[in-house]
């Protein structure tokens, strides 16, 4: 069960004032939200690390939450930032990225919010060639040469597309 926006906003405001009980509830709700959020793009073995990195960023940057704004777009911006950072940082080995079957059911309203803030939406803003290169190499764990063979792009073009795509993703983090 994920707390609604109003509850999360109240918890976040209390957490900023040092209320540990509210903070514990807020972090638990954020963790549930993040697990669902990352599940579409990140393989199971990496989700826990990414969620923890994101929660650590939430902890460090708690002052950056504006109590006059909703919590979820703030959390999603931090999640996207950590995700792009994660893509930059490491090449993945496993090729089991998208696990659509595991996606938990959510009510319509919540789905609409998550869809608007989703990582898929971030990728939609990329040119096809850049999107494909990042998906193959960074998400599915293919080598540059394998991605080159799969896409028909030269190896250097795959590298250029990854570099440009990540740069563009970083610039698009706050775009809905």
């Amino acid at each position: 069960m994920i707390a609604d926006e109003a509850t999360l906003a109240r918890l976040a405001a209390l957490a900023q004032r040092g209320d540990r009980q509210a903070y514990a509830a807020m972090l638990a709700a954020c963790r549930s939200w993040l697990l669902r959020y990352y599940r579409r793009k990140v393989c199971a073995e990496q989700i826990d690390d990414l969620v923890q990195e994101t929660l650590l960023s939430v902890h460090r940057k708690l002052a950056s939450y504006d109590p006059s704004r909703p919590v979820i777009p703030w959390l999603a911006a931090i999640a996207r930032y950590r995700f792009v950072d994660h893509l930059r940082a490491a090449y993945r080995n496993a090729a089991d990225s998208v696990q659509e079957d595991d996606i938990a059911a959510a009510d319509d309203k919540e789905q609409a919010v998550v869809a608007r803030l989703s990582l898929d939406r971030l990728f939609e803003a990329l040119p096809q060639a850049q999107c494909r290169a990042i998906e193959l190499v960074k998400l599915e764990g293919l080598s540059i040469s394998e991605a080159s063979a799969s896409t028909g792009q030269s190896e250097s073009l795959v590298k250029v597309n990854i570099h440009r795509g990540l740069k563009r993703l970083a610039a698009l983090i706050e775009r809905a």
Partner: protein
Amino acid sequence: MPENIDIRGDAFLDSLVADLKPVAPLRQGMGMAFASLALALGATLVVAVLGLRRDLAAGHPDPFVLTAAGVFLVLALASAWGAIDMARPAVGIRRDGWGWTAAMAAVVPGSALALILTDLVTGQAIDFDRGGIVCLALGIGIGLLTGGALILWLRRGAPSSPTRAGLLIGVAAGAAGIFAVSLWCPHDNLLHIGIWHGATVVFAGLLGRIGLPRLLRW
């Protein structure tokens, strides 16, 4: 990483909770007050050390100098506003308002460049003041105060694009610095103000864009 934080499972959440300290939310108004204070300090420093332009001191400011200085001041405030707002990230927020102010400010150097181009086409001698590099260097130096204040503020926040934040800080710092220098600078012609004062903003923006992201990543 905060001390004593366990990064596994529920113990991880417990350690974050145990580490919680009250924090003041980053208010836009406070950030602007902080940046404005740095800008005012820079202007005061210029006037105290170098003195005020004669026309300003006499209470009869040159209309063009006054207009150009005003444009740079507005650009500094608009860019600072944009940079400070970046401390509070949120998906769905558009932050391109400062770009219109920058486009407006670009009219000053743009007009100077058009004048140079016209002189080149008509074969006239260009009155290009090379001494303007003093204004550029002073503008960058004084702008460090505003730039420093913005860096400190954004390091407390979570800018989602350190590159864009660096650019905005650079533009704000350069514009604030050259506004302060305008209070002293004895020149009042379009070529000097357009080229050298405009170049200060462009140069500071480039410096911010290239050099600041590493300080702003989190």
